[in-house]
């Protein structure tokens, strides 16, 4: 619909970020990446490292999807469509790993 493409900012309840905000978001993403790197080089985090990394990259993921991909500013329908696939992919991935990592039958690999 032209209202969507033509007047990007006009037809939405929340207005898109400005150039400045986009750059700031980019900076934020960079900072998070640096923190991730630092965490992975920090000895002694042990098992904590994995959840830390997961949360940080999850935050990055959400930021890109919400702001760069404008999902935050679109109708909820698009979010639902995408999240459905994403959650399913995650669920299948986790159950697959659970099936393999708890598998006693493997004798050589």
């Amino acid at each position, binding site marked *: 619909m032209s209202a969507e493409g033509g007047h990007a900012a006009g037809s939405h309840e929340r207005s898109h970020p400005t150039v400045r905000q986009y750059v700031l978001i980019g900076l934020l993403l960079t900072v998070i990446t640096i923190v991730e790197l630092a965490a992975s080089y920090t000895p002694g985090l042990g098992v904590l490292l994995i959840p830390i990394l997961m949360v940080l990259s999850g935050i990055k993921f959400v930021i890109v999807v919400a702001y760069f991909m404008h999902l935050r500013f679109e109708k909820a329908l698009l979010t639902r469509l995408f999240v459905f696939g994403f959650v399913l992919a995650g669920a299948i991935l986790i159950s697959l790993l659970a099936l393999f990592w708890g598998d006693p*039958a*493997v*004798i*050589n*690999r």
Partner: protein
Amino acid sequence: MRLDRVHTRRLPLAAAVLLTGLVLAACSDPLSTIEPKSDATQTVQNVYVIVFWLAAVVFVGVLGATLILSIWFRERPGRVASQFHGNTRLEIVWTLLPVVILVAIFIPTATAIVDLEPDPDDLPPGTVHVEAIGHQWWFEFRYPDLGIVTANEMHVPVDRPVYVTLRSEDVIHSFWIPQLVGKVDMVPGRENAVIFTPNEARDEAYLGQCVEFCGTSHANMRFRVFVDGQADFDAWVEAQLAPPVAAETLSELAQEGAALFQNPILALGVTPCVGCHTVKGTPAVGLIGPDLTHVASRSTLFAGIRDGFASSEDPERVQRELERWISDPDDIKPGVTVRENGMPAWGEHLTSEQITALVAYLRELQ
């Protein structure tokens, strides 16, 4: 209308015939899945009976309802369809009803899964341990505690737990003796296991077969299980452990065959017999093909698809088939020369006299 006449006559009768057919059809068939002869298959059967009768009730109910509604509400002069969109109470009922049925199925199912699961660290006392190894297209059976290696034929004592570990040398096979134990796959790179206690000794063999598609001759990959009384089993073990036939007791022709069998360069560029087969006490120590130390004592040949010397009424016929096998095995079991580590077609390399001599030798490997 034609529909109701045809239906009313056919369906109830058909349903009755089919249901009883389902119960009776398989009884006394050698591979029957509903004639349990071990604790393991009995456990399955106990679940099956519950599920079967529940299924039968649903079958009759739904098909009957379909039939009755179709007849009752068919178009007739003056009939007007009542316009309604649903009935919430009814819909809740027929959502919950299946749930109840499924719970009734699930509880025995879950119990049976746990019951059937072997625990390798806590095997019952007196367990016989067998290693079953799938090959394209035959089964190898090893008894690690007894030192026996055989092929396509398993002997177990009655009323003692049998623990079978399952492996594969090549592709995925599946191990199944319908009357003794449900199927579990033999997966390369993995080790699975089953445990069962046969409860009926008999002369007739229990039939088993590969049930996971494993290539050209999947259909020709079968085996037999003999459930013996303890004394018979001990005798079998003793026979298997007995030293193989001494060379000097062989007939003249068989000695000629033995020489051929043990010749390390039987034909140029072709792996000789000894490259693949083992006959204990001889230079033949190959590990690729079946162990032939006591091949003539087996009831079948070529993985359960033909009678062997020990069971056939007509040993000459077995002799001829074995000659045909050595000469062109694909003729009996398609694909066997083509697959990796396959049996060569010796007809291209040996004279028929030589093959006759070879078979004469094998025939004396009691």
